[in-house]
């Protein structure tokens, strides 16, 4: 297969995206209810947060507004995986039913074609909610607003989002080997709920596990420290973009390995 440029893929993504949105528009009730559901989950997370802080004013030295910032940060960081990589949830059904074969017959990258097929609009609600939370917390903490800080914020938000993308790719790709592996995805998706707490609560061996093996600590904590504690940024925060890229690359390789291993069901 010849190599194709980024422009080719970008143009194709746009075309597939338009088709997907058109098909979504034909289920308007579903769209409205799904958006409502997304708002509900975010509200519920927020209510849990408020109840927690009503009972406990600080957690591990983090006060209300710093925690709120971390919470907003995690919401924004989770948006790309929600919007662009949502088709991973369908992977196991496609593999089981054999429909997955259609992706292998196109002269484009299988991973790209599969992932580009679904764009999840309701993730945008979460993005808005997350940005609102960050701004609110930002004002109350009183972090100075300079162009450099904004650039840092964007870079590290993107960094943080890489880790969840990698995790979900890994989790989804397990279905090439394990039948009924939906559990793995559900569980990984639930671990993200812990991303909004400072990873400094972990100690010992679990600190290593939740930093390097199941990188929950990178989904919000380490990248956000660059903004929250500008005077005292741990080295792990600085090199997190590099880690993120490595993680995503490994997950992509793992996913593609699964594709190669995939033997088609006869039907």
């Amino acid at each position, binding site marked *: 297969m010849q190599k194709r440029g980024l422009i080719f893929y970008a143009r194709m993504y746009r075309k597939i995206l338009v088709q997907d949105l058109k098909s979504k528009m034909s289920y308007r009730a*579903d769209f409205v209810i799904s958006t409502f*559901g997304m708002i509900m989950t975010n509200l519920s997370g927020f209510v849990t947060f408020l109840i927690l802080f009503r009972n*406990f004013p600080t*957690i591990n030295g983090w006060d209300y507004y710093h925690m709120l910032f971390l919470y907003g940060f995690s919401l924004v960081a989770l948006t790309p995986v929600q919007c662009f990589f949502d088709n991973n949830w369908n992977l196991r059904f496609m593999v089981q039913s054999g429909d997955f074969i259609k992706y292998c017959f196109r002269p484009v990258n299988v991973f790209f074609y599969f992932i580009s097929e679904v764009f999840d609009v309701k993730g945008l609600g979460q993005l808005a909610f997350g940005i609102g939370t960050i701004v609110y917390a930002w004002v109350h903490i009183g972090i100075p607003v300079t162009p450099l800080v904004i650039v840092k914020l964007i870079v590290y938000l993107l960094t943080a989002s890489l880790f969840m993308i990698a995790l979900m790719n890994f989790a989804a790709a397990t279905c090439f080997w*394990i*039948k009924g592996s939906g559990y793995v995805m559900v569980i990984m998706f639930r671990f993200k709920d812990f991303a909004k707490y400072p990873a400094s*609560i972990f100690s010992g061996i679990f600190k290593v596990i939740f930093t390097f093996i199941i990188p929950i600590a990178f989904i919000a904590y380490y990248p956000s420290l660059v903004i929250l504690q500008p005077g005292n940024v741990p080295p792990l925060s600085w090199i997190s973009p590099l880690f993120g890229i490595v993680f995503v690359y490994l997950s992509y390789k793992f996913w593609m390995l699964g594709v190669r291993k995939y033997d088609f069901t006869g039907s």
Partner: protein
Amino acid sequence: MNPKRLLAITRAGIMESLQFRLGIFVTLFANLIYLVLVYYLWKAIYDSSGTDVVNGMTFTDTMIYLILATALFNFLEMFVVWDMSRKIQSGALVLDLLKPMRFRKYTFWSYTGNHVVQFVLTFIPTFIVVMIVTGGAIPLGLNIVWFIIATVFALIINYNIEMLVAPICLFTESTWGINIVKETIVLLLSGATIPLAFFPEKARMVVQYLPFRAVYDIPLSILLGKSGSDTWQGLLQLFALQIVWMVVLTLAGNLFWNCAVRKVTVNGG
């Protein structure tokens, strides 16, 4: 209805669930990791608060409560909403409607096998691990018997909530949205994400009487001897609440289903 026939359905369900052994072990393993996460989070929270008891809950209480809530969640989880929407799309719903058994009854019993497997293979091991980690902080006595009864009631209430929500798919063609709304409401108001004891006083007064509490909070309170369940009067009150909701939801579910089933349109799949 002959109980033997019902048990045959349960047995089929058990065998079906055992096909996914690996999935069960993954669930169990994930529960253990989850246990670690909950442990560290709440340890940090209690360490920062400076007191040992918050709203009548000690650190150990909270931890046991949340971990067993997760284990209960795995055990009670039913995919009625998903299964029904898939059956509507493929047309397989018709086959179930044609069975010589009431649809609601059949659906309920076809899930029981999975419940049995989940209870034995995920809930009990999680329970044992919690017992070991906390050094036997869960009192073992009559409360275990009451807990099992309350869990059966919780199962029925949960099924009825599912069956009230699932037919909505018949009208809206939305599955993800409906399911996520249901799950969010149930998990928050039942105390599965944060124990009800931490809710503000006024909110608790309302939540206390809602059916969601009967699914997670009541069985767990009974197990831990909280919410006045250590006296006969308190225990009876909790059971009464469960029974009232069980009856109300069963009736409502029946009515709604009978109404909704007439709307079913199956494309000649």
